């Protein structure tokens, strides 16, 4: 018996919350793939810590989305019983780990954004979102610090690490624009003071990453062409494989409790 996908009533607030939850889950899942395979034991610990932070953020956001939706859904139904087209995360966070440089660049781009974004969201008129933001901001601030230190070491370390870090930046750059995009659904929430307008933090984000990238003797690409689609469920091919792994037990054993 196949397990049907859950239906989600994507009101603007549910959709908004799910998008942030999906970002956190998918990136946390990616980081958890490193567990047992990192370049040093110390870094294995660090990657798992960041993964656990993100997993925690995802769970709080899913629970809130379920509460707002007031249907039969919960954190696990959102995570395990939505198909690739129902997932709302950024394309950036679903990109495969690749080598350590790629993982760190992905983390760096996202954390530099999330840090600003959560900080702004602490002022949300929605008390739950503001509380989640206050907790998440401290986590993303550390993720930014951690990944920045590595970007500097990889960029300004050996020839090989420089090359790998630059390649990762070049390859992932086109996925960064989506973080700052707003659609109609979010526009209303922004006007109501609930959601955060990601446009204002863009300049600050660019300053932050430029400073680190310069110190790392790396360069940001000149291209401004940006990929979009994750927010509306048009993903890269990678996400389907991630989900088939993530969801395998729930899909294989319908209705079982774990």
């Amino acid at each position, binding site marked *: 018996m196949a397990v049907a996908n859950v239906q989600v009533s994507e009101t603007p607030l549910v959709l908004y919350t799910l998008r942030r939850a999906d970002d956190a889950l998918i990136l946390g899942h990616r980081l958890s793939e490193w*567990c*047992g*395979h990192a370049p040093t034991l110390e870094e*294995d610990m660090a990657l798992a810590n960041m993964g*656990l932070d993100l997993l925690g953020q995802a769970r709080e956001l899913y629970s809130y989305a379920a509460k707002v939706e007031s249907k039969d859904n919960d954190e696990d139904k959102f995570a*395990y019983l939505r198909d690739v087209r129902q997932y709302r995360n950024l394309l950036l966070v679903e990109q495969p780990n690749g080598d350590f440089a790629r993982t760190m660049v992905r983390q760096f781009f996202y954390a530099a954004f999330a840090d600003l974004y959560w900080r702004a969201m602490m002022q949300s008129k929605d008390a739950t979102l503001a509380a989640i933001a206050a907790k998440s901001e401290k986590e993303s601030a550390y993720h930014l610090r951690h990944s920045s230190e590595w970007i500097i*070491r990889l960029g300004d370390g*050996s020839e090989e690490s420089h090359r790998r870090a630059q390649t990762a930046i070049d390859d992932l750059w086109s996925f960064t624009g989506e973080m700052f995009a707003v659609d109609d659904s979010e526009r209303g929430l922004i006007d109501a003071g609930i959601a955060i307008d990601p446009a204002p933090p863009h300049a600050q984000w660019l300053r932050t990453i430029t400073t680190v990238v310069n110190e790392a003797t790396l360069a940001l690409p000149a291209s401004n062409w940006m990929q979009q689609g994750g927010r509306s469920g048009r993903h890269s091919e990678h996400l389907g494989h991630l989900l088939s792994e993530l969801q395998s037990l729930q899909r294989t054993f319908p*209705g079982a*409790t774990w």
Partner: protein
Amino acid sequence: MYTQALNTSDADDRNVEDAARAAAFQARIDVDERIEPNDWMPAAYRKTLTRQISQHAHSEIVGMLPEGNWITRAPTLRRKAALLAKVQDECGHGLYLYAAAETLGTSREELVDAMLAGKAKYSSIFNYPTLTWADIGTIGWLVDGAAIMNQIPLCRCSYGPYARAMIRVCKEESFHQRQGFEIMLMLCRGTDEQKAMAQDALNRWWWPVLMMFGPPDKVSQHSDTSTKWKIKRFSNDELRQKFVDATVPQAQFLGLTIPDPEMKQDEAGYWVPGPIDWEEFKQVLAGNGPCNRDRLAARRKAHDEGAWVRAAAAAYAEKRKRRQFAQAAE
């Protein structure tokens, strides 16, 4: 945290030591004094401990792999977080243990290289595959349960850094076995398929877990010196018996059958298992377990693919030092 009695005796080396110092050393051990890194110690004590602690560390790190195999497939977000935290703990425990071993004078890199070269042993249990989610429950319940039996006495081991590492490990591990048992409980209260999954996992893991305590006392060659040095406080068979007696009622609570038709309770109330297949144990230790090659390959891959990262960090540190030096000279 997984240790296993794998050591062979180094008693011969002791002959070359100064007899008076050796006697004074033993006297300290006898009054339960702790030995610290800079203290004089017999070469054989150093060698035995270096090997035991590093094997213990290797076991933690290799032990991340079978459970890590299910992090991306954990069936709920709660289970996923718990499993990731648990496997991460094992990494931490490996790290504490390598640090304890290093105080005896061998670098972590050297110890790890020996493991990757296949020259150092780690616990045989991690050479078995995790096939279903129930294996994750079983590992927490039984493998961690067996490990706890082994490691609690190690908190009083005569070597200070090892004992301190073990205290930290035991404190952190307190949730691991409960985590596993909870998974088993959910499965055993679940659908028929889930119950069958739990029983199947127990069937596959039971005997390998009993082997974790090492060969029977009558053939174990090295327990004497380790006992005298208070590295080991209970024999393999004593610990195994303690484990079996603790586990049988838990299995009964779960409604699972221990896959040992010969097991019976003796008059004193102890559960006596049937004969253990020590040939299988020997083969797994010799590299012929179902996953020995996969485990080593995975660790080598992580090590090799991390080499450029470690080199980059070292190169950057060197550059920074030079820059600071140049600045200071200006």
